[in-house]
């Protein structure tokens, strides 16, 4: 852009000065913005500020809290790794760790299996396909607390509709204590997690399936490949990058799951269903031991970090090969 001198007017001196100043500022700013590195930093700045304020600061604060003996209303002082040491020797933490790994591992396998199965089904042509796809999403759309309360009723020790149906069908003669048994409680919680998580897998994998060229399947079919072979030789390899991303997100979310367990059992009975988030919440927010709570929630951060790095590395490798 070039600056034009102010036309006309009585003050020629003024017209001679003002345009020069504008030209100089404009050229200066333009010159700076023409530098791609500076422009890149400027464009990145809003995102960096948001990430810094809403992610980096809370994370850094959490790390700091885990290294202090802070309690409610007391900022505490630096205690090094004492909170982590305490968690390491805490039997409830041990149980919580086992629960969290079982909870994440088992539900991820089931969510992937059911999600893939549903995605393959939904990828076919059939009547009311759109309605079916919308319907599948329902568990994912309904607020978690609301749907979990519905499940809580279904698992109710006294009035469980599941028990009632099984009893009417003659399958059981005594009530099943869905949320009261040591192992059954965790299994019941996992069922709800799978129910809620399958749509995320199904829709994401469906999107991946739709990017696969149907001609590949047609060619393989002409060559005599059976459906199962086509799946393993064509669909699965091409779907793998999408699957890895979906699993990555799901594992992170499931590891940090809170609402579902908190509403269903509060971590009970006798800590049988505590996962990291609920135990950290009980210690940090319930009992007000902020330092210890932060240490519990951060204890598995290194493990998760390794999982994420490995998965991202794998995704990048498959992208480049």
């Amino acid at each position, binding site marked *: 852009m070039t600056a034009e001198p102010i036309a006309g007017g009585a003050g020629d001196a003024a017209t001679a000065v003002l345009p020069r100043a504008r030209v100089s500022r404009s050229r200066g700013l333009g010159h700076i913005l023409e530098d791609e590195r500076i422009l890149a930093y400027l464009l990145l700045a809003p995102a960096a500020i948001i990430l810094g304020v809403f992610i980096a600061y809370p994370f850094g604060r959490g790390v700091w809290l885990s290294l202090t003996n802070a*309690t*409610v*209303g*007391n900022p505490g002082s630096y205690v090094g790794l004492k909170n982590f040491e*305490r968690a390491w*020797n*805490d*039997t*409830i933490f041990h149980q919580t760790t086992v629960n969290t790994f079982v909870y994440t591992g088992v539900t991820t396998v089931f969510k992937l299996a059911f999600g893939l199965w549903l995605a393959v089904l939904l990828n076919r042509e059939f009547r009311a396909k759109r309605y079916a796809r919308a319907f599948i999403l329902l568990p994912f759309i309904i607020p978690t607390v609301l749907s979990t309360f519905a499940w809580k009723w279904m*698992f*109710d*020790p*006294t*009035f469980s509709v599941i028990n009632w149906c099984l009893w009417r069908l003659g399958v059981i003669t005594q*009530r099943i*204590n*869905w*949320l*009261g*048994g*040591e192992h059954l*409680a965790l299994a019941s919680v996992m069922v709800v997690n799978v129910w809620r998580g399958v749509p995320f897998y199904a829709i994401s994998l469906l999107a991946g399936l739709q990017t696969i060229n149907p001609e590949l399947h047609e060619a393989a079919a002409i060559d005599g490949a059976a459906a199962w072979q086509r799946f393993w030789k064509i669909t699965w390899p091409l779907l793998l990058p999408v699957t890895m991303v979906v699993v990555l997100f799901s594992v992170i979310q499931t590891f940090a799951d809170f609402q579902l367990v908190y509403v269903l*059992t*509060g*971590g*009970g*009975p*006798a*800590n*049988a269903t505590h996962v990291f988030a609920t135990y950290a*919440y*009980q*210690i*940090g*927010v*319930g*009992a*007000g*031991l*902020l330092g210890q709570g932060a240490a519990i929630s951060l204890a598995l951060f290194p493990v998760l970090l390794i999982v994420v790095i490995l998965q991202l590395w794998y995704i990048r490798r498959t992208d480049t090969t």
Partner: protein
Amino acid sequence: MKTVRMDRREFVKVSVATAAVATTGIEGILAARRAPAWAQGTTINIVRWTDFVPASDKVLREELLPKAEKALKATIKLETINANDIQPRITAAIEGNSGPDIIMTQHNWQHLYERGVVDVGDVAEKIAKAQGGFYKQSRDVTTSGGKFIAVPWSVVGLMIAYRKSWFAEEGVTKFPTTWQEYHALGKKLKVKNRPIGQTMGHTFGDAPAFSYPYLWSWGGAEVDDKGKVVLNSKATVDSVKFMTSFWKDAHDEGGLAWDDSNNNRAFLSGTICATLNGASIYIESLRFPDKYKTEKGEQLKTDILHSPMPKGPKGQFAYHVPFSHMVMKYSKNVGVAKDLLLWLGTKENFDTWFVSQKGFSVGATTDWEKHPLWKDDPIMLPYKDAARLGRAPGFAGPPNAKAAEVQTKYIITDMYAKAIQGMAPEESVKWAEGELKKIHG
């Protein structure tokens, strides 16, 4: 901006009112018939649990607080939340340095939040002095180092509600006096699909209200009077051993997953014969006499009686849940908040709320035992002086922050729950002892 003109007479009135308030507190406000200048235009936010007696929340919202607003010339906003969500709310408020001016607490929770609250001894002592003094349990859980960290409000009595006719069918006309008798009766009733109902889950009220006094009745205790952990004793192991067979033989085994409301629903629907509870089951049956009926079609309210928990080898104990209000340190309206608690705690005002409870809660002071309400309904009579028997968690030590931490982590309840789930009694006691040692040192 509107300018307020004040003539000499008005100036004198305001000065006198302000002086009265400064020297006499709430009495001064009431005597002056106008709020102090600093209270005018202030808003007090108060958070309480959602009462198990809904009529009492209504009384507060529609009757008492509007009156208090007029008396204190302040806007008062009441928020009621699930009792299990109170602790997280307190933590968030203190850490955020903002939130409600007054928060209701239960048990000895306030000891965990001591640094975030103001001393309310001036309010508490005035109430105690005017109303016969606080029950020991109420005073113990609200004082720390000679300071009141919360103003005692009420005590929810916990008694065993039981089905009179079902007990009578087994030839029992008086509630069993020992655990062994209760076990034997429960066993017979469970065979008839009429088990005892008791929560052993992670829930705020009924679980600790059962597990603590049950432990004490066998002679078990968390710590001795010097604070040394003494849980792992023969008495505790015996109590756990008894509990495992008692549970299997006589209880609804779903109780491991119950919260504080499950037993109410189970009792009201006729699936359990007895349960430790506040009087909310009976009060609900009074509210809807034609909704809740016995299998014979009679109103359920006519078939409910209440009894204290049975005796163990070392005596009969109870843990009645104390409620109190904390005034938060971050509040910009500490003075008005204290005045509100004093206003609500006066005999005349508390009476309105107390009557609405129909005995579900007793006052934190002993005078409320003399209230005519207790003559209205003999079924509620066992609750009248229940708070006198109450003992606080942390026994034989003080109900301090460490005791509150033990309770918040459900360690005593889980000790029994683990054994019920199959862990050897000795192991579950050892586990609980280990957890207690980490807290008490």
